[in-house]
């Protein structure tokens, strides 16, 4: 059968995007996949060398919109590691609460998108509707829905006030019944199970070989979580467990993320209960020469920041490694052999940042005309859901 490979399709504005997957298609099944990065590369590591230590925290927030407190958290851990100083107790609790709140809103966003790709637009609208109260909490505590600017080398920038706590706890507790409804909708729905089980499977060896991190690795049974293995902030002072699943396919990735939502909610509530009084910033003045490594468990996986300071007031070298850098490479293994209509949901399962997932293009080789673009693939996967729904006589 003629293998269709990908010349550049006709240009339209949707194609200018951070990641661009080109699927080599043989009839219905995907034979090979090209992953092209760099459309959105802003050489942040170069810019951070021209900013002083305090400004870098703000700039690092703008790397990815959805996990906008993960990078500053890792960066701040790196500075604390470099100095060997431990921020005050209260700051640790505030950092943990903010990071977990962001995990909630990031997973809900992913849940909505996964529903959209599977053809359930109502799941999309509902998931994003339940996400709004979490953003309200952020707005009240930090002043902004995203890009909160909370993390500061040696502490936290703003304090959390006691009178907000009851309201925050109530909002989060209201979220739990809705999450149960979502858990029911996702895990017991035969159509979704049929669409996501056994699709895009990554075994334990793959996870180790590709160095997978975060929910993508935990879904393949690899029991790693930076919050428990290399405890930082207040994660060792709060009871919670790591949720893993054995399947390794898209379904187990969804299950892992939903269970993590429950864990995050009870972490935040515990943080608010146990938060001690006291200062929130240890007032770091200057950074001596040296190097530090900071790690944080972002919603998508482990973020690593490596800082090398040469005594000046800006970092000599700032290496950033985002979790998607490792997870997206695993798509090569997960997508090959699957049909085109499943391609969207597999690529979305590793939850790369929002605008990367719809950037797939399948172009017919001979005519060079655009056969299908990202949205078509979404439609294909929605139709497959439709077919299964009819077959099940729903």
């Amino acid at each position, binding site marked *: 059968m003629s293998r269709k490979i990908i010349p550049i399709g006709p240009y339209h504005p949707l194609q200018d995007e951070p990641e661009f997957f080109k699927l080599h298609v043989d009839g219905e099944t995907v034979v090979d996949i090209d992953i092209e990065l760099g459309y959105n590369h802003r050489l942040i590591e170069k810019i951070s060398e021209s900013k002083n230590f305090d400004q870098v925290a703000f700039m690092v927030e703008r790397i990815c919109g959805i996990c906008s407190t993960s990078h500053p958290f890792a960066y701040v851990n790196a500075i604390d590691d470099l100095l060997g100083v431990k921020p005050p107790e209260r700051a640790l609790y505030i950092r943990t609460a903010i990071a977990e709140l962001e995990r909630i809103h990031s997973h809900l966003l992913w849940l909505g998108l996964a529903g959209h790709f599977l053809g359930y637009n109502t799941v999309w609208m509902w998931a994003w509707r339940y996400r709004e109260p979490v953003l309200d909490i952020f707005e009240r505590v930090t002043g902004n829905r995203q890009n909160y600017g909370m993390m500061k080398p040696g502490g936290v920038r703003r304090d959390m006030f006691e009178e907000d706590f009851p309201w925050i706890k109530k909002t989060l507790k209201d979220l739990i019944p809705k999450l149960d409804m979502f858990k029911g909708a996702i895990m017991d729905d035969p159509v979704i199970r049929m669409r996501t089980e056994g699709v895009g499977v990554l075994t334990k060896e793959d996870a180790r070989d590709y160095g997978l991190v975060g929910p993508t690795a935990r879904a393949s049974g690899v029991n790693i979580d930076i919050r428990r293995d290399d405890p930082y902030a207040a994660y060792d002072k709060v009871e919670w467990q790591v949720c893993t699943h054995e399947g390794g396919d898209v379904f187990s990735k969804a299950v892992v993320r939903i269970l993590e939502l429950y864990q995050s909610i009870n972490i935040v509530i515990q943080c608010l209960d146990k938060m001690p009084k006291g200062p929130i910033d240890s007032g770091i003045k200057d950074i001596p020469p040296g190097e530090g490594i900071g790690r944080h468990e972002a919603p998508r996986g482990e973020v690593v920041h490596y800082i090398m300071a040469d005594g000046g007031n800006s970092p000599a070298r700032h290496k950033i490694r985002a979790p998607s850098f490792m997870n997206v490479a695993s798509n090569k293994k997960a997508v090959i052999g699957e049909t085109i209509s499943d391609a969207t949901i597999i690529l979305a399962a590793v939850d790369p940042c929002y605008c990367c997932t719809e950037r797939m293009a399948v172009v017919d080789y001979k005519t060079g005309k655009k056969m299908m673009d990202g949205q*078509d693939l979404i*439609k294909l996967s*929605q139709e497959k859901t439709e077919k299964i729904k009819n077959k099940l006589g729903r």
Partner: protein
Amino acid sequence: MTKLLFNFLIFPGFLFTIVLGFASCWIDRKVTARIQWRVGPPWYQPLMDIIKLSIKEITIPRTASKELFFFSPMIGLSAVTLVSILVWLPNIDPVSKGFSGDIIVVAYLLTLPAIAIILGASASGNPLASLGASREIKMVMAYELPFILSLIVPIIKSHGLLRLSDIINYQVLNGSFAASFSGMIAFIVMIFCMQAKLGLVPFDASEAETEIMGGVFIEYSGMLLAIFKLTKAMLMVVLPLFLITLFWQGFNFLSLWKYAILLVIIILIRNTNPRVRIDQAVRFFWGKMTLLAILAILLAIKGM
């Protein structure tokens, strides 16, 4: 002569159908929004869209064949106004009888808007539009077959009457066709074909807005786009009424609730399932729908 002009331009023709079309379009968007907990647009939204489009600049791409690109929307619009006259008059005006065989003329006129879209899309020279046009052609071929087959059922049941007004009188005398078993099957098949003809969600692969960037209408803007939108709105009025005259004893101003029921059915179908891929739509129409239509015909012949 002036009465004909009046009929064509004002009463059942152009203006009246537009007003009803805007109302049904608005109801459709409002109900869709309410299902998703959204407030939905104000009542004058379709009107405002059309007026706004009229002041926009009309861009004609260099690669397009100018005349065809410019006139194809007109074809669709004129076809729909003609159909609305042929459908409205027999129902309301006891005097005018229409002519024998007008049921076949209406069937052909109803395919003209789709042809206009295909002509316009392929004339615009944009590869995405030609992709949309090829999908539209497949869609037309798919739903025409069951559409015509289920059109034959009322003719058989009324023993070969080819005039709309006669069919209505026949139904008024001895019960609407939809009551009978074969009539009901044909009615359901027609509803699905109507959904495809209107290009609503399950079968709108050709004009998929997020899919191929506006599909067939990608190169259109300004007044031409407004005409296409108008044609679609008027089609949304005319098609359900055509179905009512064939299967449900016609209608007059009092019995517009039948039209409301059909509108609700269309909106429900639109909101409950995702867009179907083009080859699946073709299989759906040529497979299930054609079989159902043939079954209805056989039953009608046996007089069920």
